[in-house]
C-alpha cells in the first residue's frame, strides 16, 4: 500500500519536493528508497531526522509501516 511522505525544512530542500507517494513496508525500506531517489544530501538529513507515522513519533529501529498512510520527516529542531 502506498503512503505519503511529507518533508519539512532541510528535508524538503534536500528532496526538492514537499511531498510524494511511495510503497514501502518498513522504515528501513523507506530510508533506502528515499536515499536512492534523492541522493546523499537527503540521506544525511534522514540520518538525523525523526519520523512521524500518522502523527505519532516513530520509535527507533526498523518499524513496520503496515497501515501507515502518512510519514512526516522532521529534521533536528531549531526553534527558540
Amino acid at each position, binding site marked *: 500500500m502506498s503512503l505519503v511522505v511529507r518533508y519539512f525544512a532541510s528535508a524538503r530542500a534536500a528532496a526538492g519536493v514537499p511531498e510524494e507517494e511511495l510503497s514501502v513496508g518498513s522504515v528501513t525500506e523507506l530510508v533506502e528508497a528515499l536515499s536512492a531517489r534523492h541522493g546523499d544530501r537527503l540521506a544525511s*538529513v534522514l540520518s538525523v531526522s525523526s519520523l512521524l507515522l500518522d502523527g505519532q513519533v516513530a520509535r527507533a529501529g526498523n518499524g513496520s509501516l503496515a497501515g501507515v498512510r502518512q510519514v512526516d520527516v522532521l529534521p533536528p*529542531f531549531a*526553534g527558540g
Partner: protein
Amino acid sequence: MHMTTDAATRHVVATVEASVGARELDPAAVLEAVQGGAAGAAVLFAGIVRDHDHGRRVSDLEYEAHPSGGDVIGRIARAVSADHPDVLSVAAHHRVGSLAIGDVALVAVVTSPHRRASFEACEDLVERIKAGVPIWKRQVFDDGTEEWVNSP
C-alpha cells in the same frame, strides 16, 4: 486548617497560554496578560533574531513550524506548569515566517509568588521548547549562502 497565602496558591491551577503563529510578538503585552495579584515575580525570556552566526553576518531569517507545533508548545507549557508547582502562570509564544534582525521569535513568561520558582521554570520552559517543538530555522548570510540550522 490555617494556610498561608503561599501554600494556598500552590494548589491553584496555573494559567497557561501558548501558541505558534506568524503574528508579531510583543513581550510587554504577553507579560501584562499573565500578571495577577498573587504573582510577586515574573521572569520573561525573549529570543531575538541576531545579526550574526558562526562569525558571519545574517541578512535574512525564516522560521517554519510543523502543523503540530501549536499543540506541542501547549503540551510543554502545561508540563512545565505541572512540574513546577509554585508557578502561577506560564506563557509561551513562538513566531514563524520571515523575521527581521531584532524581531522577537520567542516569548516565554513564568510568574510565581517568589522569584526562584519563576527563574527555574522559565529556563526549563525555554530548554524544553528548543528541544521539543518542531520548529526549524533557515538563515541566509550576507554572502548569499544559506543554512538550515542544526541540520546537514
